[in-house]
């Protein structure tokens, strides 16, 4: 399968986010892919845009099955969530479980006025009534395949598609 150029998708995502920015907007990336994207979006969208990182390890719905991951990172939300319009950013949208966990965590910081979900790729296969409002690309990916965002040594994005190792 020909995968799209992730750098082109990033530029397209930025264009789609621009019109919804307001003074009450804050942008939050989900660790790790979403956080990378926010880091790259900031120079395009304006670096004074308030931003944060969520690591959803403590909110995952498969904790009882898989336990805590080894690489937990602290969430950093250095602004008031209360009454803000939050743009939640992730790299690949799949089942919707990560987003559910992220929303649960976000609400423990305060009650946002709204949350908009923006992703680089919507790969299909959602399992919950959650969907991205903004997606730079929609590609159907078989459930045995893992679509991932990676960074090269120049910090440029590219996508990889490999079978799930535990499938």
């Amino acid at each position, binding site marked *: 399968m020909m995968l799209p150029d992730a750098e082109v998708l990033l530029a397209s995502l930025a264009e789609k986010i621009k019109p919804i920015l307001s003074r009450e907007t804050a942008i939050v990336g989900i660790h790790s892919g979403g956080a990378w994207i926010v880091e790259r979006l900031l120079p395009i969208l304006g670096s004074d845009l308030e931003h944060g990182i969520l*690591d959803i390890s*403590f909110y995952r719905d498969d904790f009882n099955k898989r336990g805590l991951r080894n690489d937990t990172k*602290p969430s*950093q939300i250095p602004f008031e969530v209360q009454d803000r319009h939050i743009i939640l950013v992730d790299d690949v949208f799949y089942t919707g479980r990560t987003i559910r966990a992220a929303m649960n965590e976000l*609400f*423990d910081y*305060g009650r946002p006025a709204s949350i908009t979900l923006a992703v680089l790729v919507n790969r299909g296969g959602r399992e919950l009534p959650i969907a991205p409002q903004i997606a730079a690309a929609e590609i159907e990916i078989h459930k045995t395949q893992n679509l991932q965002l990676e960074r090269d040594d120049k910090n440029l994005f590219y996508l990889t598609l490999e079978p799930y190792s535990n499938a």
Partner: protein
Amino acid sequence: MHNPQLTKEGKLKHLLSIEGLPKSILNQILDTAESFVGVAEREVKKVPLMRGKTVCNIFFENSTRTRTTFEIAAKRLSADVINLNVNTSSQSKGETILDTINNLTAMHADMFVIRHAQSGAAHLIAKHVAPHVHVVNAGDGRHSHPTQGLLDVFTIRHYKPDMHNLRVAIVGDVLHSRVARSEIHALTTLGVPEVRVIAPKTLLPEHVEKLGVHVYHDMCEGLRDVDVVMMLRLQSERMTGAMLPSSQEFFKTYGLTQEKLDLAKPDAIVMHPGPMNRGVEIDSAVADGNQSVILPQVTYGIAVRMAVMSILAGNSE
């Protein structure tokens, strides 16, 4: 021999002592605790990890601070918490403990936090419990107090991130201190190159240097150029027989004053596991001074205990 704390896959299942735990697990606990520090600063200070789980704090020996921090930690993980203070003086050891555990297991307890005056009590319980039940040692006799050791190294790492370049002095009643043993194991496992113990001969265990520490009897000599001063509590209630002339005499020789602290590095931090005997092992001015991180230790203790409990809860066989 198989380490009873680990699952077959080498994951942490019980926390009984720091001895024998690999560096990777210690780092996982410390890194996870780092994430929990931020949780305490949020509007909602809870995460849902242990929703529906029951944690039993069973204290056969009193310790208000340890019990309280374990209770807060479990509640911030959304667990239900039951506190039991069991007075052992009239009970025989062994069978009674296991009976208590059996009863609580029948009430579907998922985790036991155990404090006991007898060394090895937590090990005994860990051997006995069902496969899905986890045990945390909250201090057993003179043996071990792993979460205190972990919160101490967490505090050190927080203030002095370059662990490979540190001199740490542990001062006072090493003989009766389970904290000191846990600290020494944690510090050497994490690669701290120089750990010193400073104490009179009567308050040092035999062959203490086999743990990889440098022994000093002169406090002024031992404190020279250290980055961290960890004071220990003088465990008067554990002392049988006269090991010391008097507590005033002890303060003169081994009490931490500003004058002695000035021999350490200018940015050295001062720690104490509590409860403090002011004027016995530490001068009030030092305990409340700007090099003291004694209260941050308590705060970080909650994050470290949250990390331990959540890691255990996720590693069932």
